[in-house]
Every structure is written in structure tokens, then in C-alpha cells.
């Protein structure tokens, strides 16, 4: 016992030293936790402040413009105090619809090909290439649309301008293709192979297996991919600005210049005064975009809960 006490006394120095170390490590430990917590706080607060700033400024528009006029009138003549945003809302909705009509089937096809049909060496090339394509700046696609696609459309259809919903939809289509196909590819690849084997064992061909077994099993993931593509095409601005024609009118066909929410905001925001109804109307349009994108995310989360 006495020996032990002596030993303990002898190690008092080291003890004190160790205590100092533990104290500072505990301090660091707590500081790190605090840092992480504040990071998350900043993240949440920034979303909140975006919603509050944009929403508060946007809602001011209803002081001067009635609810009905803003949502249901197609007359956008800011100099005459007419702020009907229906043209832009319809434009955004139809552009997104048109884009998905083209992009969804093609990219799901590519996803099926990469995950089920392509030989292994091709898979190893295809996936990184699709990843690379996601990173190409949208403005480059817009530039291509302006310099290659629009002259091409003009030649083919004989239209005078060539700008419009069709050109914008094709440009957006090429932009969202890699995104949708990569995410659906992941969803299809994560379908358990037991399902495949069971289907083959029942004598079905590969096509039957894919269409009747794999696609239904992967459908929540594929829907998520399509909705993410939708969110991207709703929010895309510069590529659309370059090919849509930027005229606030309801288009009579797919080759008439028109305007959508994003392109109208970016075209006019620089020139308007901050405290004007015009500016509030533009912020309201941005708030609308924000609400739509949040709604899409809520749908995705619901899908995930269902799938899990």
C-alpha cells in the first residue's frame, strides 16, 4: 500500500501534465462540436433569410396589384402599371413540361442501358463521362443553342426568328439528360439482384424483366431523378435567356419568342428601382420559383419515405 502511494506521489508530475493535456483536448472537443453546430446554424439561417428577404419584398407587390391580376392576367406592361405574370408562369410550366417530355424517356433509356445492358468496360467509361457532362457550364449550352441550334431550326422550319419554347426545351433537354440518367442509373443499379434472378427463372426475357420488375422496383428513385431534373430546368436562367427570345407575350406556337419567369427576372432586374412595384413584381416571381422548388423537394422526401 505504502509502495503504491509512493509511486503515485512520484507520478504526480506526469499526472499534472496529463491533466493539462486532457483539459485542452476536452476544450478542443467542445469547440469542435460548437463549430459544427454553428455551421449547421448558418446553413439553416441562410435558407430562412433567403425565404424571408425574397418573400417579404415579393409580397409587397400585392399592395398595388391585385392577386387576380398578377396570377391570371397576361398583360405585362410595367410602364403602364400592368403587372400580369401569367405569361411567364405558363411559359415556365410549358417549358418544363416540354423539356421533361423529351428528356425523361431518353434519359431513363440511357440509365437502363448503362445499368443493365452495357458490357462492364463500357459502364466504366459511361458513368464518369456522364458525370463530366453534368459539370459543363449552362451558359455554354446556351451559347451552342444560339449559334448552332437556332440557325438550324430556322433552316428546317422556315420560321423567321427560331427563338422560343422549342429551342429552349432542346437546350434544357441536353442539360438535364446527364443529371436524370445518372441518378436513375443509381436507382436501377441498387435494385437487389434476387429480383432479377427470380424473373429470369420464371422464363422472362431481359426486356420483360426490365419493364415489369426492375423499373417498378426502382420507380421511387427514377421519380426523384426526374423531379430533380425538373427543378433544374425550372431554375435555369442564362441558357434559357439566350434562346427564348425574351418577349413578354403568350406564344402562338413553339417557335415564337416568349419569356419565362427566370429570363424575365434577369432581363429587367438591373434596370428597375428598388422601391417600385415593378421590382416587387420581379421578386414575387422569384418567390414563386422558390416555392415551386421547395414543393418539389417535399415531394421527393415523400417519395423516399414511401420507398424506404
Amino acid at each position, binding site marked *: 500500500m505504502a509502495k503504491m502511494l509512493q509511486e503515485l506521489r512520484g507520478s504526480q508530475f506526469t499526472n499534472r501534465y496529463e491533466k493539462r493535456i486532457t483539459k485542452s483536448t476536452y476544450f478542443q472537443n467542445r469547440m469542435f462540436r460548437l463549430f459544427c453546430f454553428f455551421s449547421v446554424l448558418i446553413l439553416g439561417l441562410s435558407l430562412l433569410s*433567403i425565404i424571408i428577404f425574397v418573400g417579404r419584398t415579393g409580397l409587397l407587390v400585392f399592395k398595388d396589384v391585385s392577386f387576380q391580376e398578377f396570377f391570371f392576367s397576361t398583360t405585362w406592361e410595367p410602364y403602364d402599371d400592368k403587372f400580369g405574370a401569367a405569361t411567364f408562369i405558363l411559359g415556365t410550366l410549358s417549358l418544363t413540361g416540354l423539356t421533361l417530355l423529351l428528356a425523361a424517356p431518353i434519359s431513363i433509356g440511357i440509365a437502363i442501358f448503362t445499368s443493365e445492358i452495357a458490357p462492364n468496360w463500357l459502364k466504366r467509361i459511361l458513368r464518369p*463521362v456522364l458525370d463530366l457532362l453534368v*459539370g459543363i*457550364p449552362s451558359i455554354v449550352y446556351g451559347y451552342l443553342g444560339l449559334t448552332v441550334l437556332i440557325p438550324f431550326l430556322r433552316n428546317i422550319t422556315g420560321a423567321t426568328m427560331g427563338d422560343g419554347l422549342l429551342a429552349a426545351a432542346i437546350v434544357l433537354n441536353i442539360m438535364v439528360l446527364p443529371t436524370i440518367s445518372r441518378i436513375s442509373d443509381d436507382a436501377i443499379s441498387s435494385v437487389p439482384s434476387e429480383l432479377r434472378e427470380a424473373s429470369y427463372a420464371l422464363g422472362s426475357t*431481359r426486356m420483360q424483366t426490365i419493364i415489369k420488375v426492375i423499373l417498378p422496383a426502382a420507380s421511387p428513385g427514377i421519380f426523384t431523378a426526374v423531379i430533380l431534373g425538373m427543378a433544374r430546368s425550372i431554375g435555369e436562367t*442564362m441558357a434559357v435567356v439566350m434562346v427564348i427570345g425574351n418577349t413578354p407575350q403568350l406564344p402562338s406556337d413553339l417557335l415564337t419568342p416568349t419569356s419565362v419567369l427566370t429570363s424575365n427576372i434577369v432581363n429587367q432586374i438591373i434596370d428597375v428601382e428598388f422601391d417600385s412595384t415593378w421590382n416587387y413584381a420581379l421578386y414575387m416571381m422569384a418567390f414563386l420559383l422558390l416555392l415551386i422548388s421547395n414543393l418539389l423537394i417535399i415531394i421527393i422526401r415523400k417519395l423516399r419515405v414511401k420507398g424506404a
Partner: protein
Amino acid sequence: MNGNSTNKLYKQIKKISDQMFTIGLWIITSLILVLIFLLLIYILSKGLTKISFSFLVGIPSEIDVGGGVGPFLLNSIYVLLISLLISVPIGIGSGVYLSEYAPNNKLTEFIRSCVESLASVPSIVIGLFGYVLFVDIFNVGLTIIGAGITLSLLNLPVITRVTEEAIQAIHMDLREASYAMGATKAQTILKIVIPAALNGIISGVSLAASRAFGESALILLVGGTGTSGEMWDWSLLSPGGTLPVHLWYVQSEALVEDASEIAEKTAALLVLITLFLSLSIRFPLWVRDFRFQNKSNKR
């Protein structure tokens, strides 16, 4: 007899339609990929041959032929670095919090949905927010620092999410081993978990970086279309126009005679830099995967 032949016919139809399906998918995929590649090659071949060193560092001109993109290129890199400087620590911090510290409750779920919502907010809405903040409230006008800070809001959710996923994929054993050695939670995370998850985190950062580099709508609103007009201007308060914005400006508003040539060269430069950004970070991963695959094939 009759049933047998219909059965045969049915089998044949099944086989043919299966083949048609396979061939159709081959054709669609190769058509689309070839199309996109032709477009990229078209851009690169049109612009790359004309790019010279004087174009890369030259001052842009509104009137004379032969202007360069020097200040825009510099601004692009500058703004990107500022945004990464802000978003990488905060993004990794929040990713760590969400995966390691956050209790499993409603608040955490709420924060997670905030991250996802923020990731899907259109860049133009974030741009408008930055415009209100820097132009109307702080009254600093269109600046580099404003563009960098606003851009970091675009990167943050991407980095956070990727970090969270990468960290969650790390085995519990590693953490337990570290705790058993007497390490605190912070030490375990900083010295064991983050290094193990570094691959995923880096590829997430590269994804965010290439997206931020190509961003144009947000920069147009917060950074403006111009630069200070001088090379090597490091002031944080000079106008923050970047390369993508310049491409838009030259193509749609500029009056210079050689505008279309400048646009060609700028587009080629943009594609080249984004490809380089994503390739340089993925390349080590590819080499490793390739080696791994070869090894497992030999076995």
C-alpha cells in the same frame, strides 16, 4: 398442336421484341452521347486553335478588335476561391454535425430538409438575395466579395450533403478503435473519420467547384458584367464579372467587331477549364479503381 404453334410464335415474338429493345437502347444512348460529344468538340475545335497567351491575359476592349479576357479569367478564379474558402469549412462542419452529432429527432430532420431545399433553390433566387443584401442593404454595389459570398450559398448544400454521405459510409469499427485508444470525439473525427472519408468529400468539393465556376445568372446579378479593367487587381471591392458572364455579354450585347470570335474562344476556354477541374480531381480515383479492378480480375 394449335396451342403448341401459338406458343412457339409467342416465344419468337418475345425474343424479337427483346432484341429490338436492346438494339433500340444501344442506338439511343450512342446517338445522344455522340451528339453531345460532337457539340463539345465543335466548341473546342473552333476556339482552342485561336487562343493565344495575349488573349488569356489581355484587357477586354469595347471598341478595338483583339481584346482579351484576362481580368475575367482572374475574377473567375478569385470569386471561386473566395466562395470555396467560405463554403468548404462550413459545409464540412455541417456535414459532420449532421452525421456525427445530430440527435435523431424532428429538428435534425428539419435541418436536413433545409439542406435539400437550399440545394434546389434556383441560382437566380440566391442571386436576387445577394443583390438585396449587397447592393441595397450594405450598399457596396456589384463586387467580387459579394459575388464570392453569394456563390458560397450555392456550394454549401452540395458540400454538406456529400460530406454527410461520405462520413456515414465509414465503418463504426474505425471509430470504436479510436475511442478505445482514449481519443475524444473531436480527435476521432478530425484524425480518423475525415481522412477516411476524404475521397468522397473531395469529389463533392470538385463537383461544387465546377458548378460554381460555370455559374452565370448569380454572378450577373451580384458581380455585374464588368471588371475593373486592369490585370492583377486584387481589390475585393472591384466589379466581379466572370468568364461565363462575359460569354453571355459578348454574345448578346457587345458591339466589338470580333465579338463572335471572342465568344468562340471564351466558350472553348470555359469547357476546357471545367473539364480540367473535374478530370484533375477524378483522375486519381480512376487510376485506383482501374488498378483494383485489374487485381481482382487476376485473382
